[in-house]
């Protein structure tokens, strides 16, 4: 993770992880199954951020190893399921991710669901532990 910190800074959600895996698949196919060179593949098939993060090592001839390491690091990320009541911006996701990384555990991946019926707040599922911090539950507790 240490070597790819710049790349993994932007992998906050399961959707980001899926996109990265897809880019890695395309890169692998382009490099080993076509005659497109690694440079051209990086320029055309992946995002600039990803390309910048892995460019040096990939072009140094360790492409296969680099791709395997990134995949390995991706598989080590711990998934935390969260449910929120609003459509989050990238900034919102970053703030929640940062808070959870600092307070719960490092190397996490957010699996985000949106459920407007919870009104506000958040519901967390981490390692099988369910924590309901939604406004709906608070209101229910208040009235019952």
């Amino acid at each position: 993770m240490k070597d790819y910190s710049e790349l993994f800074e932007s992998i906050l959600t399961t959707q980001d992880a899926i996109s990265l895996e897809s880019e890695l698949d395309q890169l692998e196919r382009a490099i080993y199954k076509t005659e497109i060179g690694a440079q051209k593949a990086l320029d055309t098939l992946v995002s600039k951020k990803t390309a910048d993060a892995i460019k040096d090592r990939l072009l140094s001839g360790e492409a296969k190893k680099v791709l395997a390491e990134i995949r390995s690091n991706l598989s080590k990320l711990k998934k935390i399921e969260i449910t929120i009541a609003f459509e989050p911006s990238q900034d919102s996701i970053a703030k929640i991710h940062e808070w959870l990384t600092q307070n719960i555990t490092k190397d996490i991946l957010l699996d985000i669901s949106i459920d407007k019926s919870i009104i506000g707040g958040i519901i967390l599922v981490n390692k099988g532990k369910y924590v309901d911090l939604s406004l709906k539950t608070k209101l229910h507790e208040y009235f019952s």
Partner: protein
Amino acid sequence: MEISLPVLTYATILLTSILGLVLGLISFLMLQLLRRYYTLKQEYDALTSKTRLQISKTFESLLSDSNKLAKDSQNEILKNLDEISIKHSKAYEEALITGKKKLEESFNDLDMKMSQAFEGEAKNFSSMVARAATNAQAEFKASLEERKKEMFTRIDSEAFGIIQKATQKLISKSLSRQDHEELVLSALEEAKREGLL
């Protein structure tokens, strides 16, 4: 020895004359007998008719006597029967009166016993009804309390549902993304303080 014809003739004439005399005698005797028979027959008829008349009279007399006797006997029997009937009627009447009295006494006794028994049963029944009514009242009260509780719970739940929907609408309209973010982060902070995470 040879018999001469004249002798034979005279002998035959003699014998025939003797035979004729015998026949004549027999006829005379027969005639006398017939006369005697008829005389006797007449006497017999006269005698039998007289005897028949006497027997008939005797029978008539006997029949008359027996009828009279039978009538007398019948009257006597009827009389006796009447007497017996009267006696029986009286006895029956007396038995009826006695039976009625005894029956009345028995009924009075039974009535008294039944009244006592009924009174006891009525008391038991009354206390049983009172107990049942108390139990039913208690059950009804409990059921009513339960129902009230259930209804209040339902009302609470419905009220909560209405308030929740209203709150949801209000909050979802009034909350900005930044508000949501702050809510999420403050909820997380609070959960951390409470040790929920």
